[in-house]
């Protein structure tokens, strides 16, 4: 079978990179942006295959958060996820390899996913609704996430989850489009630990080798 280069794909890649860059430019974070503690933060995605829940986490994540509980509307956050670091646990190499494939994340062309949140409104004590965008595989989709916030020894902890429709991003193409095998909805849960800026004197050298906040 002849493999034809898909011009549409190239255009999408360019648009995606452009849009991603534009988002990053628009969300220049103020200087009081605090980096997340990557080692103590988690981004987990749960998808369902044949209605069996499968969970994997992204081992390399990084990001910055600006959040003042008194002014949630000024909240901003950027979270970058290294897609090739998706790990489903031991013995799932065939899944992990498949996920990097062009029918899925296509990590060769789109190595990162970027969540940008801008503006939150309080729903209750320490509960917020945040709106933002997810740039993934050359597409950008609006998102709403419900976030719970905790303050612990000066650091802020943000927990929440957001449902993602994988087909909206072209994740799982070709024979994998069938949502009865792998469901369209994927739940992404995150727990971000943001040490207070006074505690984080300098960017911590991260032993897990996360992508640094200085984006490549």
């Amino acid at each position, binding site marked *: 079978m002849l493999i034809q280069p898909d011009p549409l794909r190239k255009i999408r890649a360019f648009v995606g990179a452009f849009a991603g860059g534009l988002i990053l430019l628009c969300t220049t974070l103020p200087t009081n942006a605090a980096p997340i503690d990557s080692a103590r933060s988690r981004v987990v995605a749960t998808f369902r*295959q*044949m209605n*069996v*829940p499968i969970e994997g986490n992204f081992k390399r994540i990084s990001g910055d958060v600006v959040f003042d509980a008194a002014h949630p509307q000024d909240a901003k956050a950027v979270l970058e996820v290294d897609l090739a670091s998706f790990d489903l646990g*031991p013995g*799932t190499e*065939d899944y992990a390899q498949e996920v990097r494939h062009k029918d899925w994340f296509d990590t060769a062309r789109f190595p990162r996913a970027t969540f940008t949140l801008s503006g939150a409104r309080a729903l209750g004590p320490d509960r917020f609704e945040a709106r933002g965008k997810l740039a993934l595989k050359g597409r950008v989709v609006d998102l709403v996430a419900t976030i719970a916030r905790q303050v612990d020894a000066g650091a802020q902890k943000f927990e929440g989850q957001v449902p993602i429709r994988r087909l909206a991003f072209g994740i799982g193409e070709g*024979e994998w489009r069938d949502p009865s*095998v*792998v469901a369209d909805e994927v739940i992404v849960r995150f727990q971000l630990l943001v040490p207070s800026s006074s505690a984080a004197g300098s960017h911590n050298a991260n032993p897990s080798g996360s992508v640094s906040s200085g984006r490549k």
Partner: protein
Amino acid sequence: MDPQPDPPVRRVDRYGIPAIGLHWGMAVLVVGGWFVGRWMTDLPFSPLKLKVYSWHKWNGVLVFALLFVRLVVRWLQPPPASEPMPRWQTRLAQAAHILLYLLLALVPLSGWLYSSAAGFTTVWFGVWPLPDLVPKDAALKVLFRSFHGGFTYVLGVLVALHVLAAFKHHVFDRDRVLARMVPGLKPRQSR
């Protein structure tokens, strides 16, 4: 005075219809599951592989559930007395049948344990999630996978012997052993 309750009905000459139905129904499921199980592990990673793995597990859970039904049926309607044959053959048959029942429990159970240890919850027919018998664990996964494979292999050998023995009784001994399990089948007449 309380009269003695009637003993369960016992067909003298053949198995009851529920027992026959369960026997052949489960035979189809077990043989099908056995071959599919051997074949599916070599499939390339694809939606088909995920579907077949799920169907295989649904089949296994069904066999396991039917096993309990079968035991109840056997209790309510015990099988006919053994056909006349040398006593060592009767003993051998009894041992083989007990082993078959045991394996019909051990094969699905080991599969369930394997799936749990691998971190894949079994969702029966895609709607009913079964409890994970053990937590996700790489070492347990390897252990239960070998149990499942080993028990499956023994079951395969035993089923093959079971089938061969049934034919031996019907074709060579010309007795009622097979006829008892097949409605409408009569033992071959001696010349």
